[in-house]
């Protein structure tokens, strides 16, 4: 009897797994087809010998050894594997973005809690946030006198505006109901902050962080092209100077994938932290 039940249960389970695979395949198969088609069109367009850009097959052949098979080689100087280049860039983003998150959330909370400050600084923020990231580079180079801190500053200043602005909105939209509860219960200071203000505005804060991490990854590549050193941005610039277009294309693919992963990482943290 029990074995029969067990068997039926197992059969049912197997069926479930099958269903899951079926469902997932609906999400996996179409993108694979799209990528294949894209590569095919690219291959056709760039297969003539006098084409300006390499075809996908040529890109692959050019970069297989050593770039694809050994992402961690280190020949000294800036001649390093792509993983090391990307890690260097990620390091800068980590510092700049963390600083922007800390300062941005703090400033956003202050600005959102006080109408006078909001009215005073919001116009300034609205102007500054439209400044393109690279426009900050000369100023930061002049102020910091060093390439690496300047690149980090560019990340910081690029990603801080969406964090400030979203945090401000998050604090301002806290429903009157919650404010009333806080008033009756005399929740003030740190308790108000941790029990009401922060949980109520955290979805908005994470929206800001997600936009911010995307912008900082956009900015780091551009900034590194100009300041040099180890990093994926300078790698692309260097490849351009030695006209190895295949390397550039490979680097672009990596940059895109890393950007996607960063976005998903913040979204994942948000799904764990944000109260439903």
């Amino acid at each position, binding site marked *: 009897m029990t074995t029969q039940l067990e068997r039926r249960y197992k059969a049912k389970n197997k069926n479930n797994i099958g269903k899951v695979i079926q469902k997932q395949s609906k999400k996996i198969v179409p993108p694979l087809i799209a990528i294949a088609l894209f590569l095919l069109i690219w291959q056709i367009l760039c297969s003539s010998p006098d084409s300006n850009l390499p075809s996908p097959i040529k890109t692959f052949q050019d970069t297989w050894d050593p770039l694809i098979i050994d992402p961690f080689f280190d020949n000294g100087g800036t001649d390093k594997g792509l993983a090391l280049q990307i890690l260097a860039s990620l390091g800068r983003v980590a510092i700049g973005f963390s600083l922007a998150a800390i300062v941005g959330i703090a400033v956003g909370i202050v600005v959102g809690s006080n109408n006078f400050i909001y009215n005073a600084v919001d116009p300034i923020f609205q102007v500054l946030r439209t400044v393109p990231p690279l426009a900050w580079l000369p100023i930061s180079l002049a102020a910091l006198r060093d390439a690496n801190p300047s690149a980090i500053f560019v990340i910081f200043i690029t990603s801080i505006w969406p964090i400030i602005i979203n945090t401000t909105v998050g604090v301002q939209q806290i429903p009157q*109901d*919650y404010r*009333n*509860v806080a*008033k*009756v*219960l*005399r*929740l003030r200071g740190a*308790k108000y902050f941790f*029990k*009401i203000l922060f*949980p*109520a505005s955290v979805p908005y804060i994470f929206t800001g962080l997600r936009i911010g991490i995307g912008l900082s990854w956009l900015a780091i590549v551009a900034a590194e092209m100009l300041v040099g050193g180890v990093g994926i941005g300078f790698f692309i610039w260097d490849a351009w100077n030695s006209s190895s277009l295949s390397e550039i294309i490979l680097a672009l693919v990596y940059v895109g994938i890393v950007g996607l992963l960063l976005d998903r990482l913040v979204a994942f943290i948000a799904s764990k932290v944000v*109260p*439903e």
Partner: protein
Amino acid sequence: MQTLNSTSLKTDQLINRDPFLVIEDVSKIYPTPNGPYIVLDGINLTVHEGEFVCLIGHSGCGKSTLLDMVSGFRQPTEGEVRLQTKRITEPGPERMVVFQNYSLLPWMSAFENVYVGLDSVWPDKSKAEKTAIAREHLALVGLTEAANKKPKELSGGMKQRVSIARALALRPQVLILDEPFGALDPITREELQEELLKIWQAHQVTVLMITHDIDEALFLGDRLVMMTNGPAATIGEIMNIPFARPRDRTRIMEDPAYYDLRNYALDFLYRRCGHVDE
């Protein structure tokens, strides 16, 4: 204008207690571009300790504004509200509010929603003591098993129970309810009315409650305050509800006086203060 009918005069003499909550000559006026807008005009009401007072009136007559001045969310333009001779100037835990939309914090469990108030109001009490109080009050409203559920996992009636537990756990002197059961289905509403009565009797708390339901008011209240229409609303009449306690819903409804009172209130609301269609 305030007129007292003969029964209420008699009971007032019978009660003969010190005034507990006093609303004195309270008016609320909002300035608008078209001149001042008078919401409430010359409200006088004295509530005794342990009394259950219901307020009824058409939408927009300023009932909520009046209760907001008792809870301290708003200040009267003229006059004052006093609790035990102390003027009310801000919200506080001695006048707990049960909101119509529950106003639970969605990121906290039912238990935490009750606990957060205790923790804020009585920081000196030990954690064990505060936990015990929170559990006790959740049990009081029959939510021991749902203590760890988040508000979104609770039904409307359960949410309002949490809200009542949160309010009562702080041992308020006055419990202010703004249409607490308005959003609930009729069966849940009746259950909660009965529970509220039991709790009120056990806690000896003074209750001010807005309602739209005459039957609810007659079942729960000691007095029914009927408000005239706004703008410049005031207390039209105060009806005494003489049914003996503890009350039994079916027995009250068999009492001939019930229908006299009910018709009287209906007459006030729909004939004397009926909405004039413009």
